[in-house]
């Protein structure tokens, strides 16, 4: 049995590794329309994506803002639902807030990629629903009067370079508070 294993295992590892390497190589085209193999990877984990910051890097920050409408018709001003963590030297070793900052970046990027699609598709996309729930819980976690509903906004800015105006990307429809509580779980 051991003799068999010693003969087969190196070949099996070489063939499997070779196949994954070949699939990885053929999944790195600058144009993502060529990502046929990657589509087979439903989790998006087995075939590495080495196109970091390429062909075009992220040169903008995304911002999520929300405003609420109270039960007695008072509309609050827009406020940021999440503020990206400013850089610190310690981030080289320890940066627990990176996950949520990156999460906001991922969810916003996904929504931007849906922008040309039909409204119903955007509103039912996982990214939109996750963001809607995220904003709702952010509002819920702060003290507020009884609410009729809320609205959120996705915007893009050039970060510390303030020479350009932030750009509004997507504004949600008005979301009734009670209905949203139900939608969260459907």
């Amino acid at each position, binding site marked *: 049995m051991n003799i068999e294993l010693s003969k087969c295992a190196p070949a099996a590892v070489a063939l499997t*590794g070779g196949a994954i390497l070949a699939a990885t190589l053929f999944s790195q085209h600058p*144009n993502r329309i060529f990502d046929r193999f990657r589509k087979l990877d*439903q989790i998006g984990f087995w075939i590495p994506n080495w196109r970091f910051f390429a062909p075009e890097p992220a*040169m903008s920050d995304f911002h999520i803002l929300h405003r609420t409408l109270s039960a007695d018709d008072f509309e609050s001003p827009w406020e940021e639902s999440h503020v990206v963590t400013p850089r610190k030297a310690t981030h080289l070793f320890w940066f627990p807030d990176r*996950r949520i900052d*990156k*999460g906001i970046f991922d969810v916003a990027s996904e929504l931007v990629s849906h922008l040309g699609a039909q409204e119903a598709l955007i509103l039912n996309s996982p990214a939109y629903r996750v963001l809607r729930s995220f904003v709702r819980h952010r509002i819920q976690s702060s003290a507020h009067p009884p609410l009729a509903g809320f609205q959120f906004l996705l915007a893009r800015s050039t970060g510390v370079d303030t020479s350009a105006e932030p750009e509004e990307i997507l504004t949600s429809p008005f979301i009734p508070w009670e209905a949203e509580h139900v939608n969260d779980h459907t």
Partner: protein
Amino acid sequence: MARQLVRRFIKSVFTPVSIGREDALTYVEQLAAITHLTSSAEYLARPKNMEEGSLGDWRLNRERFSTLGAWQMCALDTCSRPVVTKAIHWGRIGASLTLLAPSGKQARAAANGYLALTSALLYPRHHYGTDGSDQVSFQSSTVVFVARTVPNAKVQDAALWYLALQSGLAYGVSGWVKLFGPSWRSGQAVPGVMRTVTYGHKGVWEIFEDRPRLAATAAHAMLLAEGLFPLVFFSKGRLARPFLTWATLFHTFIGASMGLGRFATSFGSMLPAVAYATNERAKSAALPKAAGCMVGGAIVAGVVSAARRRVRIKGLRHSSVSVTTSSGNELIYTWAPGPDDDAPVLILEHGMLSTPEHFAWIVEALPRTVRTVTYARAGYGASGNTTGTYGIEESADDLVDLINDLPRGTGPVFLAGHSLGGLIVRRAAQVCNRTIEGIIYIDSSHPAQLARSSRQRDGAVQLSQAFQGLSGSMRLGFGWLLERPTWLNSLPCPVQDIVLAQYRDAKLWTAGRAEWRSTQRYFAQARNQSLVAMDIPALVISAQKTLDADEVQAVLHAELAGSHRQAPWTTEVVIPGATHDSLLTNSEHASEVAEAIAEFLEKSGAAA
């Protein structure tokens, strides 16, 4: 003396890294363990990010993975319960510490296996917020798990070679793909990234902001180092030290300035494998040979499949009619059966980057009293383009030749064009010596659309960018890598395969690119010209979403209809809920289009 010192220094720089198999495995697993340890500790430090209402709310995120099998979903559901996720993370911290402390080989194998397995199980759960360091540390832990589970020198060599080649791919791909980005080529990418709060650093941005040459130099130096990294495998180890030193410094800088500390240890975990794979120690090279064979085999398979697709597309000739136009192009067209020879004939002109089969729903929904003709423009599908020109005028002339090729005694001729096809049929109707009874514009282009619509101009820029490298890649035989487009599933089943074959065929993209260039020139020339009035009845069909997305489109479509006002029965129809493409690909929208066409033909046909 100084010369000797310089010589010794240069020699030491270009000497392969003498690292043994076991040491390489240990360094790989320990650097990966530091990444896993930091990652899990960071997750546990922010437990709210796993709960309801966070970006990691599994009840919402699980939809994304609903196509996975039942047992996979069951495993993910279990691991994604907040209490289980936290327990797994504590376990990952324990496993990482096991690898960082002196421990037995079996314990190390188990720890690596646990880290690899839990990385895979938690990746969907933490979907929003994962990054490249998670992928790399998974690769490293998996490789060492295999190497430690099967303690065979050849297996361990294969495992280390695999990781080393993935590292070479990581840097090489990152460098080469950046070359396709205008901001990397110009150097704007460095200050562009550094100005962001998410990934940047204000201090670094201030250094580069007013120094474009320095920014360009930094960007190009990075591209050069990344792009040339794979040379390390062709230098007998002599370039290992310079490249590994660069990579270490690079990741430390990136980690500090961009907040990507975990990238330093995760990518660092692949470097001992590179050092081992490239040094002069005797080792098995089975994996690089297998990988080379598979890449070569895949390229051959790609070329063969491209040839088979071409044969399949050319096979369309057998069931079609061909006509050689006065320009020398050969058009292949298909007649749908009609009840009588003198039944009205509807010739359907497809849009850019499209196929005649896109009209399948409309053809199916039209009444049998109409004979339809679908054909591929010169250069598309089975039709040949011998002239090398793809302009609207040339295509219209070809269409006129096709109309004249129809048997004598055929019924009244109507022309319908979708998108760019609308402009072609309009032009053909103007120059055709045979009477055209009516024109149907299906969400048609307009000669002045780029001049008058900023949205169309933005779309044109995006389309031009999309074509860059695309048609070249298709000609190189990359068509088999094109993913199956989702819209294809909306077309009738019998045509899906042939449409997919054309979609993955280089000819479609070559023709599309050439046509787009000609069309841009046409738009530039026609920007200030008003539409010539025509006395042919017209039906202008618009997709509601097209009009909703760009108010200029409503004006342009109204102008198209207005240019036919002299003729009776000119009608405008808006298909509710339809998009530009769904007018053809959605069976319900296509039925509504067919209904509008049938009504129009009935009115015009009565007059004829």
